[in-house]
Structures are given as C-alpha cells and as structure tokens.
C-alpha cells in the first residue's frame, strides 16, 4: 500500500461505521417501548431479516479471520464448519414453528422462559441464564478484540487496539441501546450483504491472481502438501488431527448450534411460522458462502509460508499484493462487520437474559415491563464495558472459556428434546441432568489427562446428562399432564 494509503483505508472503514450507526439507530423507531419490542421486535421479523440475523452469526470474526486462518494452518480440519452448517439448524424446521406459537401465546422472549415454564422451575431459569452468560462473555470478548486488531492493522498501529475496539463497539452500543433487536436485525442485513459480496470476490479473485484459479491451486496443493487437504486435516501443533477430535467437534457443534440462547431467541422475533421455516431452509446457503472464505486461507499456503499467527493470513496477503487502498478499506470494513454483527447480538442477548431469566425470576418478580427494558439497556452497557475490559486489559485465557462454553451450551439439547417428546421428564430430573452435564464437561476440560481419542468434553457431559436426566425423572414425580399438554401435543 502506498504511503498515506492508510488514510483512505481509515476513511472507508469509518464510512462503513457511520452507515451501521445510522441504519441501527433508525431501525428502532417503529417498535413498541416494552420488552416485547426491545427483545423480540414485536414478533414482526420477516424472512430476509431472520435470514441475515442468523447468517451473520456464523460469519463472526471467527469465520472471517479464523476461517482462513484454520484453512491455512490446519487445512481440511476447517471443513468442520461447513459440516455443522449443513445440519445444525434442522431441528428448528420441525420445532421452531411450535416454539414460536407457544411464545406468542405465553409471552416468552427468551429461551429459558420456555423451559422454565415447561418444567415450572425457577432454578432451571437461573441455571440457563448462568450458562448463557458464561457462553456469551468469551465470544463477545473475542469479537471486540477482533475489531480492535482490524483498526490497529489498517492504520499501521496509529490507532491502538483499545481505541479501535472502543470506536467499533461504541457504535454497536449506541444502536443496541437505542433500537434493541431491530438495530441488530437491520445492521446485520447490511453487514451480511456486504460480507457476502466481499467473501466471494476475494475468495475467487485471490486464487485466480496467485495460482490461475481454484482448480490449479488445489492441484498444486495436492501435489506438495497432500496431508493438508486430507481429512481430518492437521491439529493446532501441525501434527495430523485425529478422527475422534474432528468427528466430536462436528458433533458438539451440530448439537449445540441450534441451542445457543441468542440464536434461540430469534424464534420469538419471527412474524410467521412460514418465515421461520424459510429461514431454516435457506440457512445452509450461508455455509456455501463460507467455502470461498476457506479458499482465501488455502491461497496462502504455498505463496506465504510461515505467517504467524495464522489468523492474520488474510490481511497479510492483502497488504502484500499492492491492491488499491479502497479495496483494503472494504476488507477492513468487512472484518469489522463480521465482528460487530456477532457482537451486537451477544450484547443484546446478555442484557435480556440477565433481566428476564435471572433478575426478574429470582429477585423482583413484580418488575414492570418498562422498568425491565430500562434495566436491559443499562446491563447492555455494563456487559459491554466488562467484555471491553477483558478484551484490552486482561490476560484471561479465552481458549479455555470458549471450549467450556461450547460444551455447556450443548447440554441444553437434552432439555430441548424432553420438553417436547418425553412427558415423564420431571423438574428434578431436568435440573439434575443439566447440572451434571455441565460439571462433567468442566471436569473433562480442566483435567485433559481424562481425554480419550480427543473426544470433546461436552460429549462426555452429554452422556452423563442423559443418564442422570432419565434416572432422576423415573424416581421423581412427573409434571401435571394438564400443564405439559400444549408442549407435547402436535
């Protein structure tokens, strides 16, 4: 890039941020003032918004920077992202319309409200809220960090990581605070379109420029580094990854994916059952859009060996190709879009879950709707500040927290299944199962010597969870069939 080019790059990036801010703030004008409006968008989101709000979540900072990084350093291991995008959301096709209907009838706006109502349990609500927050915080922190790095790279260090993170997430905070889920939905639509265009143009342009096309690129790679392209690819240390590690990563992601509380809440934002189904049908197309993102990483293998850390492979290629500053600016804006479109949803969900599922349930059942919304807004700012602190000032290991959170979130799946299919499941059974599952997951994470064939700790947690859920339910009193009827009937 020519000297002074960074000013153009910065201008393009700031232009994108301004557009996000305007769209985000304006989008909240027409929603009602209560939690139904702020958290569930008055249950009025159509197919397009739902599609992008869910799609943007897979295009997180992980996919945009981490995806090429994985393809570059671990090769075929990165295909696991595509595998879970293919099947992960399918349970929703069959059950989301019913969940949406129940939500409308019984006033749910969060995931825990559904389960707590089904099992008549305040502790279930509180446990789910804690799992959610434990899952959200490391992800949010990672997104904020990602945004900070983007600024630092494009301005060649003139804007430090903390300031970049502050600018990007300042914008996010403003539109989430003002517009709630509508701000998330409309900015995600814009960010989603933008990322798709960018992913495809870069993913096809770079192999063409560096190798003469995607086919010739893989041809050379298959000759020179066949082990990289052979599934299950490589482990983080460069040795061959095991099938146990790969398969259980696919399994835990597939099981956990549709259970993430901030995705799950989107079911309650849908305008109709039809728009929900359409969204699930088209969801795998986002997985297809990820393929060119992986091409970018593979591009670097032969032409740019030894890049550390691997996540910087995309910026490294871009800055070394002598591209016009505007193109690099667009890439930076795209990377910011990926980070922000995930971070905003996490931030919004954290505030909503803490107020609706923890504070309202355990501390103040009488809190009125307007106060709840006010309180959610305050918490959005507080959580943003905490995650910002972790992102720029703390050395806390995010890796362990991320591993834990995926294992924890997958533990929600058995609760989901028995909610709709097993009348005999009791309150004590569900709570005991969930707690056991999380504990076993944590133990297997903390003591790696318990590992066997690199099977993901969350799967051991699930096994223990299911046994305990079944046994305790059989030993305790089931929930009154009159109450469970609407959940179990078709």
């Amino acid at each position, binding site marked *: 890039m020519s000297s002074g080019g960074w000013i153009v790059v910065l201008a393009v990036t700031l232009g994108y941020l301004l557009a996000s801010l305007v769209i985000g703030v304006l989008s909240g004008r027409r929603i009602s003032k209560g939690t139904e409006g702020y958290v569930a968008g008055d249950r009025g989101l159509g197919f397009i918004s739902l599609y992008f709000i869910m799609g943007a979540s897979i295009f997180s900072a992980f996919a945009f920077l981490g995806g090429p990084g994985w393809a570059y350093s671990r090769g075929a291991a990165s*295909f696991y992202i595509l*595998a879970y995008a293919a099947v992960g959301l*399918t349970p929703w*096709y*069959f059950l989301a319309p019913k969940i949406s209907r129940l939500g409308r009838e019984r006033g749910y706006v969060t995931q825990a409200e559904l389960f707590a109502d089904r099992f008549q349990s305040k502790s279930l609500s509180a446990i789910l809220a804690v799992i959610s927050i434990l899952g959200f915080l490391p992800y949010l922190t990672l997104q904020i960090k990602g945004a900070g790095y983007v600024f630092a790279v494009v301005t060649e260090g003139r804007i430090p990581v903390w300031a970049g993170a502050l600018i990007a997430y300042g914008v996010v905070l403003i539109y989430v605070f003002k517009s709630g889920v509508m701000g998330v939905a409309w900015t995600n639509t814009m960010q989603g379109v933008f990322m798709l265009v960018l992913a495809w143009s870069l993913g096809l342009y770079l192999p063409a420029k560096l190798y003469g096309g995607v086919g010739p690129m893989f041809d050379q790679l298959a000759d020179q580094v066949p082990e990289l392209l*052979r*599934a299950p690819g490589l482990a983080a240390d460069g040795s061959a990854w095991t099938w146990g590690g790969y398969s259980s990563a696919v399994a835990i992601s597939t099981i956990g994916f549709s259970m993430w509380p901030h995705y799950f809440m989107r079911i309650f934002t849908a305008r109709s059952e039809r728009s929900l189904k359409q969204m699930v*049908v088209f969801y*795998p197309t986002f997985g297809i859009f990820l393929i060119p993102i992986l091409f970018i990483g593979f591009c670097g293998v032969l032409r740019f060996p030894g890049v550390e850390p691997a996540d910087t492979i995309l910026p490294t290629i871009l800055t070394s190709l002598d591209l016009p500053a505007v193109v690099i600016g667009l890439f930076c804006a795209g990377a910011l879009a990926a980070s922000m479109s995930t971070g905003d949803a996490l931030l919004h969900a954290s505030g909503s879950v803490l107020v609706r599922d923890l504070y309202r349930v355990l501390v103040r059942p009488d809190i009125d709707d307007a106060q709840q919304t006010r309180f959610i807004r305050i918490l959005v700012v507080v959580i943003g500040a905490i995650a910002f602190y972790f992102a720029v000032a703390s050395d806390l290991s995010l890796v362990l927290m991320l591993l834990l959170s995926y294992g924890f979130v997958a533990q929600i799946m058995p609760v989901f299944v028995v909610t709709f299919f097993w009348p005999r499941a009791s309150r004590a059974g569900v709570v005991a199962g969930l707690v056991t599952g999380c504990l076993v997951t944590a133990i297997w994470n903390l003591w790696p010597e318990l590992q066997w064939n690199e099977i993901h700790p969350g799967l051991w947690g699930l096994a223990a969870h299911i046994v305990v859920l079944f046994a305790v339910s059989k030993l305790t009193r089931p929930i009154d069939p009159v109450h469970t009827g609407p959940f179990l009937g078709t």
Partner: protein
Amino acid sequence: MRRARRAVALFFLVAFLSLIWPVYSYFAGERPLVLGMPLSLFYVAAWLVASFLVLLGLFLLEER
C-alpha cells in the same frame, strides 16, 4: 405429509453420520479434484447443497 417429514428427518440423521467418522474417512482423500476442489472438500460441500435442496423440497411440498 407426515411421512415426508419423517423421511427428511431421517435424511438429516444420515447426513450427520456421513459427515463424521467412519463414513467420511472413505471420502477424505485429497484427490480426485472435483469441480476444482479436493474430494474431502467437495464431499462436505455436496452434503451442504443436498441439505439445502432436500429441505427446500419439503418446504415446497408443505406449501402446496
């Protein structure tokens, strides 16, 4: 309609099992290149496209 829904649910179970060990290990090689992609990638991408088409088919059937 119920049968169609069951068949699709079964398809997704098969898809999931096909994307992990042991089935995937038979399609895990770097060659042949299909549509320019190594077999290991094409195989996963093909399931992705198939998942989309199957669910789209069920949706259109239910819409009728």
